[in-house]
């Protein structure tokens, strides 16, 4: 079974530039999450999708971050414009969804450096 795919793996940009990350979850997984992990900290949930609908985006800085999940499969996370404090690893995870204690399967992450 293929895992969660993310691209790019690394990205370096100047502050005020834009950047986009892509995630392809495990086939058949209804729930998709984007997390931000700052160096030395645990992941922080940015947004949760159930199929192509948003379940929770309460911690997404909506003035600069946006995310979408097209046709309930792939997802993109965009930052525009980027700030220095956005430097972090952006993790995508997916689960089957439903009402069990789901295991989240994580992708390898995209490491963003904002200069």
């Amino acid at each position, binding site marked *: 079974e293929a895992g*969660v795919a993310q691209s790019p793996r690394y990205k370096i940009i100047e502050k005020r530039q834009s950047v986009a990350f892509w995630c392809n979850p495990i086939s058949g997984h209804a729930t998709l999450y984007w*997390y931000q992990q700052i160096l*030395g*900290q*645990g*992941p*922080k*949930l940015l947004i*949760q999708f159930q199929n192509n609908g948003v*379940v*929770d985006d309460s911690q997404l800085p909506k003035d600069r971050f946006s995310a979408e999940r097209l046709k309930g499969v792939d997802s993109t996370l965009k930052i525009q414009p980027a700030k220095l404090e956005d430097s972090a690893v952006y*993790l995508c*995870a997916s*689960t089957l969804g439903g*009402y*069990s*204690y*789901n*295991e*989240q399967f*994580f*992708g*390898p*992450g995209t490491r963003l450096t904002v200069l």
Partner: protein
Amino acid sequence: TQLLEQSPQFLSIQEGENLTVYCNSSSVFSSLQWYRQEPGEGPVLLVTVVTGGEVKKLKRLTFQFGDARKDSSLHITAAQPGDTGLYLCAGDWSGTYKYIFGTGTRLKVLA
């Protein structure tokens, strides 16, 4: 805002030693998960605990959920270099299966 505090933050031990990592909160969890994350990779689930007082074992790893479901511990027996990594607990307070991650414990096991 619910917070999950993990301790210690860093731990460096020799191969063969035992260790315990703690995860604490002032809130009651519906369930709690432990993950291990290696450099350049995403976290990988180790265990999910649900019932207060529950103990689960995974080879040399023993996980315990506090009776009041506010805390959890991870004990590793005879640590090996392959145990090196970032250990994360993640708690679900609301029963919605949306987990909030702790601050993490970075473990290094020296050969």
